[in-house]
C-alpha cells in the first residue's frame, strides 16, 4: 500500500509536470468543447447543443486521457527503458500497473469535473442529475479505455511513431462515434463503422446518463460492449505488452 501510494504520487507528479502531455490529453478536450460549443447552436437530441456536446466530449476526454495518453506514455517509457529500469527495483509490476491505472482514473475524473465546471461557466449547462451514475461511467470508461491503451502500447513499435499512430486511431474514432457531435446525418456506412467502435458506446452511455437522466445500470448494451472491448485490450496486453525496448 505504501508503494502504491508512493507510485501514484509519482505518476501524478510526472503527468502534470510534463506539460505537453497534460495539454494534449487534458486541455485539448476542454478547448474543443469551448470551440464546438460556440459553433453549434439550437438543439441536438432535443436538448441544447452545448449539453449534447458536453456529453459527447466526455467520451472524447476518456479516449484522450485513458487510451491515447496512456498508450503514448507507455510506449515512450518502454523505449526509453524507464520500464526496464523500474523492473530492477523492489516495486512489484502489479503495483506499478495499478498505480498507473489509478492515476489515469484520477486525471479523467478531474477532466470530467473540469468539463462540467466549464460548461456551467461558459454555456450554462446543468450539473449532472445522477452523480452516482456519472461516477460509474467515469470508472467504467477509464478502466476499459486504459485496458485498450495498454494493449495498443504493445502493438506500437517505436516511440517516435507512437503519437502519430495513436492519433490515427483516436481522431477518426471520435469523428465516427459522435464524440465531436451527432452523427445522424452521416452516410450509413460511416455510421456502421462507428457502431462497432467502443467510443460510440461510451458516448451513448454519457448521453443516457447526463442528457436523459437515466440510471447507469439501465444501459446494459453499452456496458456490455465496453467491457468486451476492455477485455480485448487485456488479452492483447497479455500477449503483446513488453517491459523492455524493442531493440534486438
Amino acid at each position, binding site marked *: 500500500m505504501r*508503494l502504491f501510494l*508512493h*507510485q501514484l504520487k*509519482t505518476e501524478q*507528479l*510526472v503527468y502534470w*509536470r*510534463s*506539460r505537453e502531455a497534460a495539454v494534449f490529453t487534458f486541455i485539448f478536450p476542454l478547448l474543443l468543447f469551448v470551440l464546438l460549443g460556440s459553433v453549434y447552436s439550437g438543439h441536438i437530441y432535443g436538448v441544447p447543443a452545448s449539453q449534447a456536446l458536453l456529453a459527447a466530449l466526455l467520451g472524447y476526454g476518456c479516449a484522450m486521457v485513458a487510451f491515447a495518453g496512456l498508450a503514448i506514455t507507455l510506449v515512450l517509457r518502454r523505449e*526509453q*527503458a*524507464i520500464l*526496464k*529500469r523500474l*523492473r*530492477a*527495483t*523492489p*516495486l*512489484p509490476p502489479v503495483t506499478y500497473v495499478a498505480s498507473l491505472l489509478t492515476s489515469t482514473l484520477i486525471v479523467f475524473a478531474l477532466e470530467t469535473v473540469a468539463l462540467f465546471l466549464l460548461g456551467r461557466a461558459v454555456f450554462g449547462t446543468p450539473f449532472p442529475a445522477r452523480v452516482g451514475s456519472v461516477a460509474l461511467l467515469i470508472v467504467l470508461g477509464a478502466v476499459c479505455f486504459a485496458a485498450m491503451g495498454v494493449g495498443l502500447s504493445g502493438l506500437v513499435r517505436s516511440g517516435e511513431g507512437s503519437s502519430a499512430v495513436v492519433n490515427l486511431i483516436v481522431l477518426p474514432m471520435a469523428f465516427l462515434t459522435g464524440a465531436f457531435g451527432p452523427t445522424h446525418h452521416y452516410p450509413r456506412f460511416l455510421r456502421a463503422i462507428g457502431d462497432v467502435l467502443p467510443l460510440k458506446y461510451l458516448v451513448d452511455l454519457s448521453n443516457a446518463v447526463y442528457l436523459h437522466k437515466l440510471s447507469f445500470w439501465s444501459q446494459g448494451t453499452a456496458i456490455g460492449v465496453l467491457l468486451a472491448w476492455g477485455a480485448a485490450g487485456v488479452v492483447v496486453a497479455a500477449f503483446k505488452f513488453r517491459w*523492455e*525496448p524493442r531493440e*534486438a
Partner: protein
Amino acid sequence: MTAISVRGLRKSYGALEAVRGVDFEIEEGEVFGLLGPNGAGKTTTVEILEGYRKRDGGEVTVLGHNPEHPGRDFRERIGVVLQQAQLWPTLTVRETHAVFAGYYAKPRDVDEVVELVGLADKRDARVKTLSGGQKRRLDLGVALVGDPDLVFLDEPTTGFDPAARRAAWEMIRSLRSLGKTVLLTTHYLDEAEQLADRVAVLREGRIVRIGTPRELTTGDREVEIRYRRNGEEILLRTAEPTRVLHELTTDAVARGEELERLEVRRPTLEDVYLALVQEDAE
C-alpha cells in the same frame, strides 16, 4: 563470502549463441570487470544476473538467490545502471532520487546520495537539462539510493569525454570504499585496469582469460624483436628473448654487421588484450 557464482552459463538468441559456458565467482566487496568487444556476451551475462533474462543452462547464484526468480528481497539488495536507460525528463535530480528511494525498505538519505554522485549543485535541475555525463551520474545515484550490497554497471562510461570518464572512475572507486560488490562491464581496457580487482576477458561468449589486471598482462607474453636487414624489416616473437638476442647479435658480430634499428619490445596491455580478443576461434 561469495556474492556471485556462475557455472557453465549458456544463453542463445535463436541461432546465435551469445554466452557459451561461462564460469566465474565474485567475492563480496570485490570490483569485478567483464571486459570484451561489442557482442562478446557481456550484457547478456549481466542481464541474466540482474534477473532480466532466463538462462538456457548453467548454475547461477547472486547474493544467495537464483536471479531467474528475483523476489523483493533480491531487488532490495541490488543496484542497476543500464546501458541506455533514461529517466523522467521533467522531474528534478532530487525528485528522481526521492522516487527511487521510495521503492526501497531502507534507502539512503536522498541528499547524501545526490552529493555523493556530485550533483548537489544540480539538485533542482530538470533531468532533461543535464549533460550526458551528468545523466550517467544520475543513473548511478538512483542505483545507489536503495543502499544495495551489489551494484551492476553496464558500460558506465561509454560515450564519455576523458574528463567525464575520470570523474566516473573516481565515483566507482568510492563504491569500493563503501564496501559494495561491483560487477562492471566495459570494452575499455584501461577502465578495467584502473577499476577492477579482477577481470574476465570475454570473447564470443567464452571467458578467454581471468585474473587480476597484472596477471593478464604478465602471463605467457612473447617479446618482440625487430631489426632491419637490407632495408627489410624483420620481426621475431619469442618467449626466450635472451637466447634469441644472443644468437642474433653473435651472428651479426661474427659477420661484422650492424643490426639496423634493433629494438626489443614488451607488448603493452593493449597488445595483449587485442591478441586475446582477435585470436581466431579454435
